[in-house]
């Protein structure tokens, strides 16, 4: 695996460099470099059609989720004040029909996007933070820190491998079962179980970064472990983390729906997995009420697919060796 990093993009002199005047100080120079790198990244990303489609779908769905209160009446989502009759087939008033309580399925799905996306993002944040810290520490102490460092690194990787092998769902469900019900529990259960691949990836990248001369320079100048990890290693593993984050959101959203479907969710909140659980418990599956069960599942699939497409595009922009093949 060649080391994906942002340095190549930064080193490539863009047309901007020739035309703009020499900046005042190092900070301005750094900012201009970042701008150039970002522009180069955006240009390469735009070449991946699938990634663009995914990004567009995500922006549209996020906008819909954010503005949902404008056109969905939250009161209509309560079981007792449902506006329609049970199991109305799709009509002009209810484009996706109604559920067993008479709530509009379209409203439920739109509203469910809020919880599903929030849980997806927060769980990803937890697991990426955990995976990055463990991965950077394991990678850093493997190459510096002497015998004690190598022991720490080995122990961290053994723990990672242990979590990697265990069935994710079983662990997440067990966590969700023993903690109090709620959205926070779901976020924690997913975040604490899906981090190992990130840790492995970040560790590999950290090892590659640690071998570079500027890390040696920082160390020679007296930089401690914390300084080297935070200022020299972390910024250079961030591109890998970014790609992994995008892919993990898809995993987390599917995980959220799965946990909700198994009844681990908070019954008071509407999420896509929760809608499907309700549909199954209400017997909508055997009764063939397709409009109750198809939209939420399709929503999960579309969002997960969009994140995956985006993540793969980001991945191949950062790692051109993969790019040719996709």
């Amino acid at each position, binding site marked *: 695996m060649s080391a994906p990093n942002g340095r190549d993009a930064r080193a490539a002199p863009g047309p901007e460099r020739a035309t703009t005047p020499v900046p005042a100080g190092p900070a301005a120079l750094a900012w201009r470099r970042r701008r150039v790198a970002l522009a180069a990244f955006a240009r390469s990303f735009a070449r991946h059609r699938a990634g663009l489609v995914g990004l567009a779908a995500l922006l549209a769905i996020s906008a819909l989720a954010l503005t949902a209160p404008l056109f969905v009446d939250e009161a209509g989502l309560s079981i007792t004040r449902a506006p329609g009759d049970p199991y109305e087939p799709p009509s002009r008033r209810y484009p996706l029909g109604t559920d067993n309580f008479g709530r509009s399925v379209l409203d439920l799905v739109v509203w469910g996007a809020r919880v599903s996306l929030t849980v997806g993002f927060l769980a990803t944040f937890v697991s990426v933070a955990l995976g990055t810290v463990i991965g950077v520490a394991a990678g850093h102490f493997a190459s510096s820190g002497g015998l004690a460092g190598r022991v720490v690194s080995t122990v961290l990787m053994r723990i990672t491998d242990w979590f990697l092998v265990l*069935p994710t769902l079983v662990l997440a*469900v067990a966590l969700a079962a023993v903690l109090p019900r709620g959205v926070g529990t779901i976020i924690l259960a997913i975040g604490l179980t899906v981090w190992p691949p990130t840790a*492995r990836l970040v560790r590999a990248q950290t090892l590659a970064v640690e071998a570079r001369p500027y890390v040696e320079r920082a160390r020679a100048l007296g930089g401690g472990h914390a300084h080297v990890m935070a200022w020299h290693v972390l910024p250079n593993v961030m591109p890998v983390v970014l790609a992994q984050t995008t892919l993990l959101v898809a995993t987390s959203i599917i995980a959220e729906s799965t946990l909700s479907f198994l009844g681990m969710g908070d019954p008071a909140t509407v999420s896509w997995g929760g809608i499907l659980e309700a549909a*199954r418990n209400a017997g909508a599956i055997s009764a063939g009420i397709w409009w109750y069960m198809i939209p939420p599942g399709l929503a999960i699939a579309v969002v997960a697919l969009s994140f*995956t497409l985006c993540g793969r595009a980001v*991945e191949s922009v950062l790692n051109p060796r993969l790019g040719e*093949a996709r």
Partner: protein
Amino acid sequence: MTSTPTTTGEPAAQGPTGAFPARGRSGSGRLWRVLVYVSGKLLTAVVSLAAVVVAGFFLFRILPGDPVRAMTEGREVTAQQREELRRQFGLDQPLWQQFLDYCAGLARFDLGTSFQYREPVADLILERLGPTVLLAGTGTVVAALLGLFLGTRAGWRPGGRADRTHTAVALFLWSVPTFWLGLLLIVVLASGRGFVPGLFPTGGMVDPGVSGALDTVLNTAWHLVLPVATMVAVIYAQYLMIMRSSLMDEKGADYLTTARAKGLRDGLVRRRHAVPNALLPTVTLIFLNLGQVVSGVILVETVFSWPGLGQLFYSGLRVPDLGLVQGLFVVFAASVILMNLLADLVYPLLDPRVRP
């Protein structure tokens, strides 16, 4: 719940760890290295199993504060009954004593008692092991064969039409939640509503009243179609992506140039030379992904009411019957670790390059 089928994995994570460079293979030195390799793997597995045992104990004891309260949530229970339950489950003992009892129980394959079924958890698990092994085994074999076959097609000409089609389909199916796909198949192919008659049963393993060996086998196979289809659809994507990237790694190898220079046809180069080598690293990953197979089995069994361990797990969750969930947690985790140990031990026999 599956992990992202990404092709950027750390190479070290793909091959078995502890691969030795090929040194001189003198008799006694080699035996020594084999012993070191095997004992290293055994030690790792033992430590992992111990961690599972400890996690299984403390996860279900420490976190909720009091398992009895969790068990009796929403029920009318007097303080006296609660005390009785606490004594029955040994919860009035100090924690270390409980832990020792639990470990001693595990050594005798005693996983505690199910609160819900009033039966030993170990008996429940043994009863339902067969159906799960049948479903998971069939699903894994079919998914691996399909994934490896399509992955070979996709990886041989990256960017070609076969690659784009197979990758797109696999990615879409991977993005679909397992349980929803199962529900969809039930509605379309089994519920008998709409245009399609009910071709397959909506759940269960054998219809009541079916007798005779052949009839039972056929009836089971008929019940197996939809659950296996669901499992395969969700997990074959990983095998496809792994095989694809593994084959792409092999593509630049010198021996393939040699094979082509000999004048071998493209198909022959692929089948005889590239695929066998690309297959090897994939084997380990198939075992590494068994955790995901377990996750898939739980969901598929829940959706299709398949009378196996997954459905048992789900029924334990609904009550909640934490004793049962804990026992299944330990069994699932331990079986995955043991399968990985098996893979680590068998792999050097398959691949001479990593033979110690």
